[in-house]
């Protein structure tokens, strides 16, 4: 009799926890890209936007990570969100639409949705023609200065990164050559080359990317990753 009672207690405890735990998971996918006039902006992965959902008491940001191609995605509950970039993040300026909302985007999510965010980059890498020869990777890059008003900033350096894999960034690379911004005379004709070190195990290709560091801006702007046969 007594043991029956214990079983009953255990069973009811299980049933309670089931009921508590069974929230429906978030299902709506928010995805999109960070664009300038329809063109994606290449960055380093990890750089985040923040989503804020007001109306539930205490606030905390949902950090959304951006991949090297400038696209992002997040699976969320339906509801109203504010989308912001933390101040000072990104190789770009955000666009202020009006005085009240400033650069905040208001989003009402009710199912899968695409949201492309338009920003104003300091520079765009217009072309990046890579060439590979034995033990060497070269690039001819063109830069366009997008912001030319009082907020304009100089190029601090342009760098050519090469890597064994598609992950090419400041932290992940096997070779890098920097060109100081002050020595660049013509933004339309930037030539950089870098030596490919011995790769173990040997492979006859590398991945390469050009990055631009803008003065006083932390995050760099990058060209798309390209596979180069040596």
């Amino acid at each position, binding site marked *: 009799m007594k043991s029956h009672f214990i079983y009953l207690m255990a069973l009811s405890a299980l049933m309670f926890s089931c009921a508590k735990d069974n929230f429906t998971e978030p299902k709506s996918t928010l995805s999109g890209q960070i664009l300038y006039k329809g063109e994606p902006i290449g960055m380093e992965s990890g750089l985040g936007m923040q989503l804020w959902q007001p109306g539930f*008491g*205490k*606030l*905390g*940001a949902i950090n959304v990570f951006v991949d090297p191609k400038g696209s992002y995605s997040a699976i969320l509950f339906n509801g109203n969100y504010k989308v912001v970039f*933390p*101040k*000072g*993040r990104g190789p770009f300026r955000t666009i202020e639409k009006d005085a009240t909302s400033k650069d905040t985007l208001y989003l009402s999510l009710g199912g899968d949705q695409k949201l492309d965010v338009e920003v104003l980059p300091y520079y765009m890498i217009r072309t990046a023609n890579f060439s590979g020869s034995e033990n060497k990777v070269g690039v001819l890059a063109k830069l366009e200065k997008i912001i030319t008003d009082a907020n304009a900033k100089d190029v601090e350096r342009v760098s050519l990164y090469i890597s064994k894999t598609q992950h090419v960034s*400041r*932290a992940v*690379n096997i070779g*890098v050559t920097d060109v100081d911004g002050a020595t660049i005379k013509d933004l339309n004709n930037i030539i950089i080359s870098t030596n490919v070190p011995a790769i173990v195990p040997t492979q006859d290709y590398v991945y390469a990317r050009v990055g631009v560091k803008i003065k*006083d*801006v*932390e995050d760099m702007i990058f060209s798309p990753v390209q596979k180069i046969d040596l």
Partner: protein
Amino acid sequence: MKKIFYIITTIMLALSSGCNDDSFLDRPPTGLLSEEQVWGDEGQVLSLLGNLYNRYYDIASVKNWESLGMYNEAFYSNAGSYGMFQSNGWGYGNEFTWDYGYIREMNLFIQKCTAADKLSAEVKERFLAEARFLRASYYFEMVKREGGVPLILEPMTYDFSGDPSYLRHPRAKESEIYDFVISEAEAIKTLVPANVGEKSRVTKAAVLAMQSRAALYAGSIAKYGTTTPAVTLPGGEVGIPANLATGYYTKALAAAKEIINGNAGAYVLYTKKPDLSENFSSIFYDKTNNSEVIFVDDFKLKSGKVHGFTISNQPRYGAEEEEGGRLNPSLNFVEAFEKLDNTFAPIPTVNAAGAPIYYNNQIDIFANRDARLAGTVMLPGTAFKGRNVDIWAGFQLANGTILSGDDRGAQKTLPGKTVPEQVVGFDGPIDGFEFTAQTGFYLRKYLDPVVGSGQRGVQSEVWFVRYRYAEVLLNAAEAAFELGQAADAAGYMNQVRARAGLVTPLKAAEITFDRIVHERRVELAFEGHYIYDMKRWRIAHQILDGNAITAANLSTDLGKATKRNTQPWGLWSYKVYDPASPNNGKWIYKVTKLSRVTGAGRFQMGNYYAFINDEVVNNNPKIVRNPNH
């Protein structure tokens, strides 16, 4: 039977009515002290104050071995810690501290101690000054980590009205917190004793040392903050206007001079021992008549307040427990030590033609260097507790190959021999083998040479030095340099350098920003200064720029303030085995990249000031978030 029962009951009832109910029920508790009891007795107040002392915040301390070697000054030879070198940055919130409970208790102490009338005026004055020092110290710690914070100087009390919003205070400006620390120091410096023998309680020198450090930090943030405009807030919660720099540097120099002139007691650099390296490491464990140390977090054997820093970092070979060797100073750090002729040079592993240099003894490669190198780092070929460390990576054979093992002291048979013999040191280095000297070095600073210090049942009573005279001299040197008094700066700096065996004085013209940065790095290494120094000069994002270090750029720009330090490298020694060669039995060294180091740390602008918790901002919407968060 019944009769007896009635009689007994009657007697008992009669007796019970005789009790005094009031005094029976209203007895003083034996487990609690009343306010009057505490504030009427000097000893009780001192123990309250002791509690506040014990809660002092240090960014790094011997209580946490990992904290002392942060930011790639050391590799962590500990299997659970490799992740530190495989990530590419540091969390924004790592250094966050927001202990307003501590501040409230200090404020309560000050309020109640001021009101206490049973303490003698003299004792009360000292207690109050000590509490104010601890409060200023914590505000100093907070401003270093978060920038300006709400400056609360009264214990706040909630009135249970349902609306706590009157308890919310906005952040003060960064400069206002520094001003508070400096002015508190000015106010209490005459209220505490000037006593060189007192190390664990506040003395005049401790107050002045804090004042000098705080003013120096504020001055450099004002001056160098202009190079990182992204690290400011419009309300001044982060960032100090550049025009205040000179004022702060003047205050820093004045406070340091007061100690140097002997106004706070006769502090001098520690020079008791003839061996300069041993002398340098003794500063940190010699607790008798130590004339250099100003203020410490003290420990005592068999008192319950001991620490296990020696257990964590003792050489693994012959260790008193089956562990140790965790902090391995990096080659980057070792190469930062100058040669005795005041020049920078890489550790010479190869000659100009690229051929290896052969050394008769392991230690020879480090000859003619700053004595602080061997005082801070346990080099191969040196001893600890009378036993030589056994650090060597293997045999270099005649055919160019290496014979080594994958276990401590592993044995293999050398070519031409029949009996296996030891082919790798009992202290490693073995790549990826925890507790061996994976960079080729162990740490010596703060290791306790007393027998038993490496046992878990005993531990160590070596103190953690918060302020010492050498730092005061370097503060003075930096402040004087920034104020254009290069000759004075050279004078202060040369005292510290001479103690380390660098007896050729630097001339006034040789004192540069790079020199100041370098001197603090090597003198104050593994004492918790490195990160704050990099931050206040706004060079952390240049030193830790997220680019991997190659062998080629490891040894260039050695004396430069912004020299890259994103990955710790190692230096491994090999014994030459080539019976036909005159070099047989000699030593060669190889610069080694550790396989566990795969990331390259990038210090982001958002790392300069800690991320303020969402919980804090939610509770107090007046709190402004830090830049880049």
